[in-house]
Every structure is written in C-alpha cells, then in structure tokens.
C-alpha cells in the first residue's frame, strides 16, 4: 500500500480511523432540498410535453383566426347576394334579358292540352 511500511497503522489505530466521521449524518432537510433542485433542473419528476401552455394558446389563436375568416367570408357572400337581388342595374347588366310569355291564342284556347310558349331572347 505504501513505501513507508514502518509507518503503517496499528490495528487499534485502524479501528479508530474507520470510526472517523462514522456517526455524522446530514440533516433531513437535505433530501428535500436536493430533490427540489433536481426538479428545477428537469432531472427528476414527470416527463412533461414541451411547453403545453404555449401549444394550447397557439391552437386557440389559430382556431379564432380560422373562425373569424370563415365568418367574414360568409358575411361577404351573403351581402353580395342581397345586393344582387335588389339592384335593377345589376339585373340589367346581368346578360341578355330573358322573358317567358305564355300566349293564349283563340285557336289554342279550345285545346286544353296544347299551349304555345314563346321565349324571347
């Protein structure tokens, strides 16, 4: 063990050496303190999903944006239809006028089954 064998411990001294600090123990708080520090450093405790709050917030914001976009689009389409139906200018500009007339001629009046439909373009 050592080059200085003449300086080896006696059996009694060895027994005393083994007892040095043997009766010492840490305070019980050390355990909790150590575990808390391990927690804080992410080395102990349940494995959590990465940043769940941020993920939830991002999802919620995306849902709100999509809902708002859909609402605006629907409102815009509905508004346009309403304007189209009420505006004669728009109707006049909507292409060739179409009119359907049903003419009842004396010659055809007798015939209950026959009728003539004239379509003007």
């Amino acid at each position: 063990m050592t080059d200085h064998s003449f300086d080896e411990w006696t059996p009694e001294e060895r027994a005393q050496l083994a007892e040095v600090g043997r009766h010492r123990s840490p305070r019980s708080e050390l355990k909790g303190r150590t575990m808390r520090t391990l927690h804080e450093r992410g080395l102990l405790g349940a494995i959590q999903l990465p940043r769940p709050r941020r993920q939830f917030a991002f999802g919620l914001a995306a849902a709100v944006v999509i809902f708002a976009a859909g609402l605006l689009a629907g409102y815009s389409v509905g508004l346009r239809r309403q304007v189209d139906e009420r505006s004669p200018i728009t109707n006049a500009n909507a292409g060739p006028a179409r009119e359907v007339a049903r003419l009842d001629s004396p010659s055809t009046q007798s015939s209950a089954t026959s009728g003539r439909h004239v379509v003007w373009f």
Partner: protein
Amino acid sequence: MIDAIDASAPPTDEALVSAIRHERSEAAFAALYDRHTPRAFQTAWRLVGGNPHEAEDVVQEAWLRAVSSLDRWTGQSEFGAWFRAIAAHVAIDAVRKQGRLVLDAEADLAIDELSVDWMDMESAILSLAPGYRAVLVLHDIEGFTHEEIAERLGITAGTSKGQLFKARRAVRARLAPRIERRSS
C-alpha cells in the same frame, strides 16, 4: 413501477438508476438517496474538515452531478463507490476553491501550536492541513490508490505517497501524548 416494489425485496441499484434515467422516478431517487447519502456525507465531512453545512452542500452537488451523468455509470462498479468518488471530487474542488488545498509541509500545524494536550483520531485528522488530510482520508479511509489520488489532486503518485507519510506522522504526533498518558 418503483413505487409498488415490495419492501421485503429492495430494488437493486441498477433498477433504481434505470427508473431515474427513463422515468425520472422520484421514488427511485429517494431510495437511492437513502441508501448512499450517509456514507457519501461522511466522506465529504472528512474531506472538508468537519464542517457539516459544507459537507451537505458537497453531497447535494454530488447528487446533481451523479443524476445528470447516470449514463456514465455502467454498472460494472458498485454505485455507492461511484457516487462517493463524485462526492470526494466535489469536496476536493470545494476545498481547492477556497484556496485551502495546500500540499505543503509548512502549511501543517505544528504540534506545539495546538492548545490541547492530546487529541483523539478524529480531531487529529481534522486538524491536519487540508492537503494532508485529503491524501490521508482518501487513501487510508476511503481506499483510493495513490494513482487515483494523484489524478484528483493534480499531483504525482510519488507526491501522494510522500504526503501520506507526513500526514500519518502528523496524526501520530497528535495522538502521542494520549498514548503516553495511557501507558503511564
């Protein structure tokens, strides 16, 4: 699950380490802590010169280092010995940071400077200069080899042997009055 392990069949260190590594199990750590902290604390306490608060700080830091590097423990050596080596390393670092780790004969207290007639073994070791104390504690109590001590203290193995020789003589000198008193 570690929480459900039967108390009559305590889990092995390997099982506890695995649970900490893969599940970050608090129960596994608590069991490992209870099993290995007492001896590691004693090692730290001896190396820092008997200051219990400093020894507690050393043990806490040792656990932080150990848990963050559990993958380095291969299971070939005993976990307790691996952990005590970390605690010893942290304790030596702590003493060194305070500028107390001086491996110099001049730094040791002369026996005639001591205010007591005699000392027991514990007081004699704690009264040694930190450098001597470190070599003596690591070699004669903790069972480190001179090569391991040299690596930890940043000295040669020959220096470690020389320091151990001087440390033993210094301790004997402190114990001598007591031995003489007993024989008389």
